[in-house]
């Protein structure tokens, strides 16, 4: 692929993803982002511009995901990441649950059932992933 995991470190304090750790990482980010601005400025017709930008962005998004997946973490870093991700997940679940409860209360007051399906799908998807992960881990160890 285009970028190397050694150029980046995991993002720990500002969300998810990776942040450049070496000058090569910063060059990678520049090469990924700068042409998008350039494509925007080019006098291209109709759908050519968004298609070009879309293809360029897709290449780097896929490559960046590959970089994140290949990033090396030792056992301590993996443990810290697992704990931090677990805590973040609990907060997200609580907020989603509050959101669902609020929408349910609001819709019962208004007499019109309306709960955002995306929130429900997110919670259900999370439950499924957790179950599958535990099944896999139990069978492995």
């Amino acid at each position, binding site marked *: 692929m285009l970028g190397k995991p050694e150029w980046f470190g995991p993002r720990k304090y500002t969300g998810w993803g990776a942040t450049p750790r070496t000058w090569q990482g910063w060059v990678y980010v520049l090469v990924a982002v700068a042409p998008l601005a350039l494509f925007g400025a080019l006098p291209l017709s109709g759908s050519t511009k968004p298609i070009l930008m879309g293809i360029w962005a897709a290449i780097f998004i896929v490559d960046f995901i590959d970089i994140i997946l290949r990033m090396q973490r*030792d*056992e*301590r*870093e993996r443990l810290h990441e697992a704990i931090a991700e677990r805590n973040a997940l609990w907060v997200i679940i609580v907020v989603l649950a509050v959101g669902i409860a609020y929408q349910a209360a609001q819709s019962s007051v208004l007499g019109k059932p309306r709960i955002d399906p995306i929130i429900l799908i997110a919670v259900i998807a999370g439950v499924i992933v957790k179950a599958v992960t535990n099944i896999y881990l139990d069978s492995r160890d």
Partner: protein
Amino acid sequence: MRTHIEFFRKKLGLTQEELARRVNVARQTIISLEQGKYNPSLYLAFAVTKTLKKRYIEDLFELE
């Protein structure tokens, strides 16, 4: 847990960075091990023991 990693590491003339590279962990992990702040897996404990040329894990790690 108390460790004697720093003592034996310096005895061998290794920096934290070098030891980290040899056992394939981050330098911060070696720092945490030396300060007794992180309890390693058995695998890592054995790897550090072998790298520092000690025979027994107990030579490096002491349960408090």
